[in-house]
């Protein structure tokens, strides 16, 4: 197979397949959760469940001071790699172009120098996160195969994207193909793993905040 054939394969059938698994999987999983439902709360409310839920969706992004101090490494690296990943994903020109081709919407991109710097930061942070996962007693104890798999499929698109941008090692065709393939791996793994938190965290935070808000507590 030539490099172009490979690129066409990943841009064509593999991407279509990955998209099907990704979209179908996410919708199935979200509905599987939602359809389970929950019982109506018969106790007299003290506060608003809806307000509490919405509040927690937003506020849970930032830990309060003491927790932040106690878990600074996890919190800070978590913030950095999420922002780095999302900004490079959504504000790099070729990515926006892809989104606009697929969904018809677009927005201004960030300069490539910013994206470049951010991806380096993200790569370093993700490596630090992995080392932390292996080195920290609690995280090592909690970690299963899936956690390392998810780390890998998250790390690879950033790394291959960076290599493709700087065209390191292989031909650009090959590098772009590998980058797209790594994204497809992420998409395929996504619905079956904790990567689902990208969507379910809004539900979880809502439920948490609603349970507390109903009782008049800001969670």
């Amino acid at each position, binding site marked *: 197979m030539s490099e172009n054939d490979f690129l066409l394969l990943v841009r064509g059938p593999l991407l279509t397949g990955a998209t099907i698994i990704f979209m179908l999987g996410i919708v199935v999983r979200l509905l599987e959760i939602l359809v389970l*439902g929950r019982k109506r709360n018969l106790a007299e409310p003290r506060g608003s469940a809806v307000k509490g839920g919405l509040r927690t969706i937003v506020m849970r992004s930032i830990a309060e001071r003491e927790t932040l101090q106690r878990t600074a490494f996890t919190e800070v690296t978590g913030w950095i790699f999420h922002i780095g990943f999302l900004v490079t994903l959504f504000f790099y020109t070729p990515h926006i172009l892809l989104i606009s081709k697929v969904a018809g919407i677009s927005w201004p991109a960030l300069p*490539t120098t910013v994206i470049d710097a951010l991806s380096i930061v993200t790569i370093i942070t993700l490596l630090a996160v992995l080392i932390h996962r292996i080195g920290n007693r609690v995280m090592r104890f909690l970690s299963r195969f899936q956690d390392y798999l998810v780390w890998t499929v998250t790390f690879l698109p950033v790394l291959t994207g960076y290599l493709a941008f700087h065209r390191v090692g292989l031909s650009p065709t090959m590098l772009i193909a590998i980058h797209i393939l790594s994204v497809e791996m992420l998409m395929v793994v996504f619905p079956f793993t904790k990567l689902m938190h990208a969507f379910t965290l809004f539900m979880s935070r809502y439920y948490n905040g609603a349970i507390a808000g109903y009782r008049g507590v800001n969670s």
Partner: protein
Amino acid sequence: MSNDLTIAEALRKRGVSRRGFLKFCAATASMMALPPGMAPVIAEALEKARRPSVIWMSFQECTGCTESLTRSHAPTVEGLIFDTISLDYHHTLQAASGTAAEAAREVAMEENYGNYILVVDGSIPMGNPGYSTIAGISNRDMLMETAAGAAAIVAVGSCAAFGGIPHANPNPTGAVSVSDLIKDKPIINVPGCPPIPVVITGVLTHFLTFGTIPELDHLGRPSTYYGKSIHDRCYRRPFYDKGLFAETFDDEGAKKGWCLYKLGCKGPTTYNACATAKWNEGTSFPIESGHPCLGCSEPDFWDAGGFYQAISTPTGDIGRTAVYAVGAGAAAGLALGALNRAKRDKLAREHEKVTIDDLEKRD
């Protein structure tokens, strides 16, 4: 002209002064993308170099490559180089035809066996030998026969180098490249549709000045010309880095000369010297003329997902696929959810009342 003359002698015979020769060497160094300091080295080498015999064969091609090389009427540097080589066989250019032409080829092969350069443009059909023949000889047979005595082969144009347009889907003639057939000779690929003329002559000049094959990349292309991507040397690169793109061929961005990435420019994945060597005697190159690079010097450029599709975009209709997937997911999710729910409701109905006697196991 006798082959015994050196190139310098041949030029002098044509009335070219020493000063002219040195100017020619400087231009040649520039053409070969060598540092200007190499001009005297070239001069010295050309003093000694014998004029090699060149056999040029055209198979499944459009003559665009020959056009590219010979389109100027007056002597150019390229033209001069060709004047100094012994082009013993080129069935588009030579005056002789029929048996005489084939005889010329056989003579050249015999006289210079093991020393001549074979230049090939066009791909070779493997589906049926009758698809393309010369003097009743199939392209494959002629190539194999002529290649046997060649010192080196230069595959000119994307067809000879990678199969090119004949090789494009569905490849009706079963076209293959020179390197698909010949494994035991040095092959220099000079792809492009057509290749930049100075690149063709640059490669020939390198061979005849230094007697060696230039350094090649993993696709057999001379690194001096194909070492950097169009994107890397494109004057519009700053716009790419700033995120300024032409969205259509007639918008503000296009008029301001912004990057053509979104219009499908293959510059980032294409290795060639267009951005610096330029075309039409250094006038311009496609991107400078406002058109995205087609990637013609890369393998299978014809099937690389559309000339006007940005390289990072999907080839399929992902939006529609996603919508269908969401629809299917909604149906499947609701069905699975309903099953889950039914299961839980059934469990609730079957629930056995728990009393304080049920908190410990019965032995």
